[in-house]
């Protein structure tokens, strides 16, 4: 600071009039100042005025617009969505950023990894939203996520040979032709029972001929009874020559191959399993005493997992038994989650870079001190690293709250069909109310003022932080 006092002396000694030096300084500031004054500061204040007027700004309304804001369903939905975003996104992005930052410390290709993770930040949110809309598409021929989910779920829960699609309005009961009934667990159980040496035949209908052609089904043939065994045939009980006869096996009616069968006792306990042949025949050998039913197990008719409708209108509704409005306000649209996932993809790199820089500037000796003090790696992380990173984590967290309060592009580009009404945020509502079909200032300005108030605490935190520096 001694330099500036020297300078002050030069100025006051009159070699150069000090007013001229200030003039240069002000001239340097002027373009920015004028710009900010006219396009940022004045409009912000004017928005407050407009929020008290009607939509064409001709009539003073007082707080009417604010009342409208808090009594309009779509705007309340927008509030709810902002709350969802603020509650979920900053936490997850900070956590993911922390995990990435810690993991990258231990690998050799950290630079490449970081570049890869940071890359989405430079994409427009519009492009990212459209990419992810495709990634999350319902159709497994378009959406990679659902295709992957399907592949995995088919491993654990493979679709049966005779899938019944609930989404197409089908039920297992539709399949029952003769001598059987559908159970609650989507299985079909014979009406008749048999003892060893007896027979049970089951007729099904509504089975697609294409499926049977694929399975190379042959004409149904009733097998011979065998001592000590229960035998029978499961067939497609439909013949164009006699459409109403479901009980007899008519010529050219096909057997149903590779059906998984289970022999169940009257208590409903399965005692043996088998599979039908290409002509629909089956045989349970060495049957014990007592009578048994035959069950076509539910997995035959499972259509498998059909994928997640990420961007449809479905919601995660946590509580039941509430009023309709409360229910709506407490539910989380699945599309919100899809957008949050997309946003995580975009912003994780930002969190990682900031937290990574924080990690790099930590005094390594403190971590070593903790190790010597007896801490295991996890304890070092939990009790020393994370607390020491707290200021950086807070910066990331607050920055992301501000960011998410203004979330706009992603919603506008990802929401479609039924999710359009479920996912708007305040920023989207400001745009929809203010700029669709001409400019309407009143309610839109009121929401803008509220948005500004929501950002205000973050602004004050920033000011405190920077003033403290």
């Amino acid at each position: 600071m001694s330099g500036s006092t020297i300078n002050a002396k030069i100025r006051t000694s009159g070699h150069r009039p000090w007013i001229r030096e200030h003039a240069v300084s002000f001239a340097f500031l002027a373009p920015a100042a004028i710009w900010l004054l006219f396009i940022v500061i004045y409009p912000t204040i004017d928005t407050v005025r407009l929020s008290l007027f009607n939509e064409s700004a001709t009539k003073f309304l007082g707080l009417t617009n604010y009342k409208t804001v808090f009594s309009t369903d779509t705007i309340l939905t927008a509030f709810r969505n902002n709350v969802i975003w603020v509650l979920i996104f900053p936490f997850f992005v900070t956590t993911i950023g922390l995990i990435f930052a810690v993991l990258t410390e231990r690998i050799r290709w950290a630079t490449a990894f970081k570049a890869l993770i940071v890359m989405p930040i430079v994409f427009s949110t519009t492009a990212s939203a459209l990419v992810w809309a495709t990634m999350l598409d319902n159709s497994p021929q378009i959406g990679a996520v659902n295709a992957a989910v399907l592949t995995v779920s088919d491993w654990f829960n493979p679709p049966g040979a005779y899938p019944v699609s609930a989404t197409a309005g089908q039920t297992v009961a539709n399949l029952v032709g003769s001598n059987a009934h559908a159970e609650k667990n989507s299985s079909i159980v014979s009406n008749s029972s048999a003892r060893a040496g007896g027979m049970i035949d089951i007729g099904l209908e509504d089975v697609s001929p294409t499926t049977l052609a694929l399975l190379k089904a042959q004409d149904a043939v009733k097998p011979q009874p065998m001592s000590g065994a229960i035998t029978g045939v499961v067939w497609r009980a439909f013949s164009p020559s006699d459409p109403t006869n479901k009980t007899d096996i008519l010529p050219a009616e096909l057997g149903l191959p590779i059906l998984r069968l289970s022999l169940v006792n009257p208590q409903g306990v399965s005692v043996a399993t088998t599979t039908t042949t290409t002509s629909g025949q089956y045989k349970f050998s060495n049957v014990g005493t007592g009578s048994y039913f035959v069950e076509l197990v539910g997995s035959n008719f499972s259509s498998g997992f059909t994928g997640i409708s990420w961007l449809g209108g479905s919601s995660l509704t946590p509580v039941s038994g509430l009023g309709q409005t409360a229910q709506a306000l407490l539910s989380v649209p699945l599309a919100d989650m899809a957008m949050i996932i997309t946003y995580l993809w975009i912003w994780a790199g930002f969190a990682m870079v900031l937290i990574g820089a924080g990690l790099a500037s930590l005094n390594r000796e403190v971590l070593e001190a903790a190790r010597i003090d007896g801490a295991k790696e996890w304890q070092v992380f939990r009790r020393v690293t994370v607390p020491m990173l707290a200021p950086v984590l807070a910066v990331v967290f607050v920055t992301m709250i501000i960011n998410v309060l203004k979330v706009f592009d992603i919603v506008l580009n990802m929401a479609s069909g039924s999710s359009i009404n479920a996912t708007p945020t305040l920023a989207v509502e400001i745009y929809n109310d203010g700029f669709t079909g001409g400019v309407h200032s009143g309610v839109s300005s009121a929401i803008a003022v509220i948005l500004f108030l929501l950002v205000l605490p973050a602004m004050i935190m920033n000011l405190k932080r920077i003033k403290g520096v």
Partner: protein
Amino acid sequence: MTTTAQTSDPTKRRHLLRRMLPARGPSNLVLGIIAIVWLVPTVSLLVISLRPEADFGVSGWWKALLDPASLTFSNYRVLFDQGFVAGGLLDSLMTSIEITVPATLLVVFFACFAGHSLVFGKWRGRDVVFLTVVGLMVVPVQVALIPVVQFYHELGNLFGLNPYGTIPGVIIFHVAFGLPFGIFLMRNFMSGIPMDLLEAARMEGAGEWKVFYRIVLPLALPALASLAIFQFIWVWNDLLVALVFLGGNAHTPLTVFLYDQNHELQANYWIISTGAIVSVIVPLIVFFSFQRYFVRGVLAGAVK
């Protein structure tokens, strides 16, 4: 040397492995998987843009990875062959450039001047002005949209020059909302320039202007680069400001092009994916060429 003999001792090596594995092995694996997951969306976009239009929706894009020969530039050719028609891809690319370049240059210039004034000026109230600027950094653009639209119309009424619906109108708005971050960045960077350097130059008789462009500006180049990259990417990727201020203008930037294709025109995805790749390429080039400055900007300005 004795040391090499010692490390090849098998027990020693096992010990080394044990200490490395829990830390490095899983980290590499986990990060490898994460890296792939992170890359998938971008790859999908690229692949879809390179697949024949008719394949979309018939089979997943990942099928094309097994058959790279099926990839073609036909989508690009079709869109480029349209030339610079209003609402076309090339026209949107041009419009994006027309908006982004001036909006970036103006912010960089003004922020440099303002930063200099705030750091090296001697007038009272500099701190108050700076804190105001910091406060303005988080002001949502939404707060200013309607009044600025009206302000533009007012300019039209008064001077016959209404920026609403024009590219300058979009630029003016972008400059205003880029300035707080720009000034913040420049001011913080410049306050790290040793005062002695300026004092020395002043002693030798340099005026304020000379001090600025001979000493401050060259030293502030890294920050200037960070700011330019940030502002460029921010403006290039903006959707809202362009939607609002371009009104019914037939020339729209790439973001609006994509938005329109997706919403109003219900376009085939091949146009969207091809357009998205074109829109992403410019910032990607900027990012990979100036990665260091970009990261520095992220670190310096974690408040926006």
